[in-house]
């Protein structure tokens, strides 16, 4: 079999399956809308005008390409491999999320939709959706768990400033998973004029593939920057995994570079052994939620469990189906970092490099702190710094007993 036929990048199949994962597990009322979306995406993904407009927006509105920054002082301090940071925190709105919302909003416009909806946990995807909606003059409704609204007041206000309506979700655990359920219900009720921008690589096909495609700009840039700055590929690429969009975005262009280790880091909360965590790949089992088959945190009756992570962006009981497949294939490794370890990395990078990472990204950084010293100084690794930490300063301050 030729190299090309064996490519791991060829997934999913036409029905959105990554091996046994993914698919379209949706109520019949959603089947029409996802088929319409699929057809539109297939039509535009290779359309030169669409691509040109997307590239323009990524450059002029988002500010791409983002740098691949050599964290020299931090690397020296840790010893071992040199650490590079892919600076998604420097994007407009402060995280990788906007790469996807820009893409989906362009698609929404071409499909003639006038209203966009989104779910959000920490608020980053909600802000990124409200931002593109404001720019394009689209109505925007963001569903957010009532618990998350309390935890993320600043992002709620940002969304409102951008003209979005933020709807508190009071069902279930009142967090991200429930916001996703509510957004699905809105979509099924308003399918004629509404486009649902899912923020991560989960949901029914085509979302996992489409969101990934919009996020692979991160990995394509990073791979080229490695070759340009170091003349070769890194020993490892590390990214945090909640739903998994920043991780798949940076992993995917490296999938066929088998010598590059791909390490996904889940929210370990109080520790995987404690049961209070958000690490379905580390400690869950396959099931079906939100339109796709993937690893889930569920109880023995198949009810979805509440998750625990210091980082709202990792606080999700499922994970993108492509990650489930990469785990089973052994192509990517998945591990978990506790809240405490992530906080240590947050402070360490902030003090050593003058870069304040998001708590989500701090999980990937904490894994780098473990890995780098085990490697030699002539090796280098890449960490996806998926977002900036400004949104988290209240969380960090509260843990230290400081009122900001």
């Amino acid at each position, binding site marked *: 079999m030729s190299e090309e036929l064996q490519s791991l990048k060829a997934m999913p199949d036409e*029905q959105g399956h990554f091996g046994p994962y993914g*698919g*379209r*597990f*949706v*109520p*019949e*009322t959603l*089947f*029409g*809308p996802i*088929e319409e979306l699929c057809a539109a995406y297939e039509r535009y993904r290779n359309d030169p005008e669409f691509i040109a407009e997307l590239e323009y927006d990524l450059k002029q509105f988002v500010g791409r390409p983002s740098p691949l920054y050599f964290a020299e002082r931090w690397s020296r301090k840790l010893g071992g491999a040199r650490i590079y940071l892919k600076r998604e925190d420097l994007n407009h709105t402060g995280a990788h999320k906007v790469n996807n919302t820009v893409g989906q909003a362009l698609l929404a416009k071409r499909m003639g939709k006038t209203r966009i909806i989104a779910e959000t946990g920490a608020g980053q995807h909600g802000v990124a959706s409200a931002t593109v909606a404001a720019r394009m003059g689209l109505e925007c409704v963001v569903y957010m768990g009532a618990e998350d609204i309390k935890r993320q007041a600043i992002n709620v206000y940002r969304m409102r400033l951008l003209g979005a309506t933020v709807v508190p979700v009071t*069902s*279930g655990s009142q967090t991200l*998973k*429930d916001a*996703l*359920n509510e957004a*699905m*219900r809105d979509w*099924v*009720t*308003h*399918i*004629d004029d509404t486009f649902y921008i899912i923020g991560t690589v989960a949901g029914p096909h085509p979302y996992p593939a489409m969101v990934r495609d919009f996020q692979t700009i991160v990995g394509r840039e990073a791979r080229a920057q490695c070759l340009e700055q170091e003349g070769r590929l890194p020993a490892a690429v590390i990214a945090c995994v909640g739903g998994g969009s920043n991780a798949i975005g940076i992993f995917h262009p490296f999938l066929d570079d088998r010598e590059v280790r791909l390490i996904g880091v889940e929210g370990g909360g109080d520790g995987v052994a404690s049961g209070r965590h958000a690490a379905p790949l580390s400690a869950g089992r396959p*099931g*079906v*939620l*939100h*339109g796709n088959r993937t690893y*889930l945190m*569920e109880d*023995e*009756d*198949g*009810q*979805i469990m509440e998750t625990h992570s210091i980082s709202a962006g990792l606080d999700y009981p499922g994970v993108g189906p492509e990650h489930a497949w990469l785990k089973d294939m052994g192509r990517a490794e998945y591990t978990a970092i506790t809240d405490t370890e992530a906080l240590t990395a947050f402070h360490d990078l902030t003090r050593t490099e003058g870069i304040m990472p998001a708590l989500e990204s701090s999980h990937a950084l904490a894994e780098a702190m473990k890995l780098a010293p085990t490697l030699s100084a002539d090796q280098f690794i890449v960490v996806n710094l998926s977002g900036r930490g400004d949104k988290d300063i209240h969380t960090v301050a509260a843990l230290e007993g400081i009122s900001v």
Partner: protein
Amino acid sequence: MSRIATRFSALRSAGRKALIPFVTAGDPNPTITVPLMHAMVAAGADLIELGVPFSDPMADGPVIQRSAERALAQKVGLRQLLAMVAEFRHQDSETPVILMGYLNPIEAMGAATFAKAAAEAGVDGVLTVDLPPEEGGTMAEVCHAADLDQIFLIGPTTMDRRIQSICDHASGFVYYVSFKGVTGASHLDTADVASHVAQIRAHTTLPVGVGFGIKDGATAAAVAQFADAVVVGSAIVARIEALAATPERIPAEIGTFIGELRTAIDS
């Protein structure tokens, strides 16, 4: 012939339409469900649809979501539900019982184990809301092996060629979802529903049930003009919610409401 087919055949001979109430098993507590099922049958229900509580019911509106939350708070899951059906069967061997729920609790039990246990408990059909036929190979096999009917939804946005494919996979009856939205929303355009039901009949000889948005005798009677079965869910569950503090009143009061629906459908 399955219990569902037998029941529809008898109704057709009698020139009557089926009334199918929906309740969530274990709402508001596990002891009320079986007496409630008997009360609904006594008041004129022809088939019973039992909701399987799930933590993330994405096709349901707030009324049915809250009923699932009440049941889950009482630790009612698929296992407890099957025990309720088995208990119901001690006194009623004729009224078909259909489970309506989501795939994950079934998979957590194991699809084959579930199908066998459900058939043994006396379940007749399964409607798995988030399992389209395209993804349902395993469920189709295990349901077929256990003689369980598989009921599928058809919606207003379902294209003609998909209607055919769904009907090819369906048994028992097919269930038309009467509008774009979740359970419990309130608008119902009966002329539009009638034309969709006619469209479905061009693809299948199975009975066609209509649900979502039927909230009283008038809407039930209107739908019964052209459908073989009328499914009433949120209107019942909302009444159960209102009586949650006095659960002992639920069987009688829901029975009265079923009686009103029955009279309206038959008139």
